[in-house]
């Protein structure tokens, strides 16, 4: 007997009596503010951006959007190696949509082009169309992207840790800052 059939047989033998599956409502009662929640999670919100002014120290900028010109091309093609992004100071992407409740932006491989662009650079700039903000996570999870994307992520502010004495450090191992630009 394979492990698979052994596990499934034991699971089926031991399953408790059937419980019904409830529907999940959209819970629209509370109106959330995207900017407030993004800032609470350590993200920055700006209505326009001059990337050179915002990151005067940045040497390497890698952009996945036509609106912003970088000086490093994204690794492309079948042999593209994401590790080439190691020395990128600022990555630029456009979010598919935002979530007001949490201040999150939705990104997938379609936006990143190279998934590591969201994590290896020191800083990340995210363009977001303010019309593409859904009220909460229940709305967000109705988005068809979750059925299509290989990899999909809600990013909410920069990487962070509070693993030592509960002291919050922003810029744990991924990006040190996340700036959302309304456009």
């Amino acid at each position: 007997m394979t492990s698979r059939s052994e596990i499934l047989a034991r699971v089926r033998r031991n399953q408790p009596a059937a419980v019904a599956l409830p529907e999940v409502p959209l819970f629209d009662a509370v109106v959330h503010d995207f900017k407030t929640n993004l800032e609470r999670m350590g993200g920055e919100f700006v209505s326009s951006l001059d990337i050179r002014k915002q990151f005067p120290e940045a040497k390497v900028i890698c952009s996945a959007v036509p609106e912003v010109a970088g000086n490093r091309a994204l690794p492309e093609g079948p042999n593209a190696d994401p590790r080439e992004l190691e020395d990128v100071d600022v990555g630029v992407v456009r979010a598919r949509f935002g979530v007001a409740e949490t201040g999150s932006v939705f990104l997938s491989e379609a936006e990143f082009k190279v998934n590591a662009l969201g994590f290896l650079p020191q800083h990340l700039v995210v363009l977001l169309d303010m019309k593409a903000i859904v009220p909460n996570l229940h709305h967000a999870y109705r988005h068809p992207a979750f059925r299509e994307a290989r990899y999909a992520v809600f990013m909410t502010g920069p990487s962070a840790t509070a693993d030592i004495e509960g002291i919050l450090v922003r810029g744990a191992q991924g990006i040190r800052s996340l700036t959302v630009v309304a456009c």
Partner: protein
Amino acid sequence: MKRVDHAEASSHFIKSKEHLEFHDRRLWDLRQKRDREAEAIPEWEELRALASAIKEHTLSHLGDYLEQFERNATANGMRVHWARDAAEHNQIVYDLLGKQGVEILVKSKSMLTDECDMRPFLENRGIEIVETDLGERIQQLDGEPPSHIVVPAVHKLRGDVAQVFSRTIGTDPKKSDVPYLAESQRQHTRPYYLKAGAGMTGANFAVAETGSFVVCTNEGNADLSANLPKLHIASIGIEKLIPRIADLGVFVRMLSRSALGSPITQITSHFRAPRPGTELHVVLVDNGRSERLGMEGFWPSLKCIRCGACMNTCPVYRRSGGLSYGATYSGPIGVIIDPAFNLRKYSALPFASTLNGSCTSVCPVKINIHDQIYRWRKVIAERGQLPMVKKEAMRMAGKVLSSPKLYRMAVKAAQAGLDYLPRSMIYNPLNAWGRQREVPKAPKASFREWYLKNR
């Protein structure tokens, strides 16, 4: 196998007042942050009820959902493996690494791999494993298991971390400021993402209808581990299944709010298919879960989403430290899971509770934790696993409490005893209540005496 003596083990932790006070305060702070988040959401109780029902539904149809998950994940291009126990899990992971000649594995937090004792198994076979979560890394470098399922090094102070890091990754032993220590770990770990042959993650949820799984983290380490090497392995306990993508709304809204008091983790990642040109393997692990599913009264513990809220609120956990439980899972959720793995070894753990029910009231999936703790006590007593002192004490208490006359005599004797007995009679190894605390002063009169006089 030796029985874990929680009280004895916690005495080591309690010795350092500074550590004990910080630990207590830090976890209570997490509990209060959780309360603020929960109170800000009017539908919180409705979400808890939904989460509980969705999990109970899934567990009652788990066979079908596991097969649906496997079917969809496979169609997406993932490879799905099944492990009946820890040994098989470790062997599967080892074989996958071996096939690609992997020498370095970067991994993000996974309690399941701890449960399986995976690290020593792979290390003994020459594979270098780098825990990438900061807390987990501190524990790895110090040769200790995590003491909390969400904040693994919560029992350590910055000075302890400075010592561990100066000994292992070459930081300045005199510098213990937290940003310096965190930055040092970042600098030390980042090169490993680039040279590792494989990355490993756990999973918080596995979605049957899409064949995808979800990883909730804050540091960026899981996504670096998953998105740089050409091989990604995810270990997933079979109880992590949920039916639909829409169900994630309920769970993701509650997970980080319950765990850390933040509305969501900084990064919430959904893996549905491998990146082109890479491999994504899922190991579905049973390791006792299918047995637990059939345990009347105990199966609802499988609803757990590992938020740690029950640990943060538990007065015993906060004042004894996670390592004193001697098990992968500590705190209230641990004491109802661990005895199912090994009743004799963990038979003392269900007694590490005051049965105050706080764990149950904060649990986002409404597990009746304190009821199950009480239930385990009964099982342990029935199977003759009570230690002699406790058994004798309970036998005497049973006699005394069932006879009003004996009870009144005992109350009188205790009143006198507390005032006049020599300290050694009260503060001795047979009286656990006399350890680490002063027994309160006995009132001059019992309630009964007062009542007879004043009625």
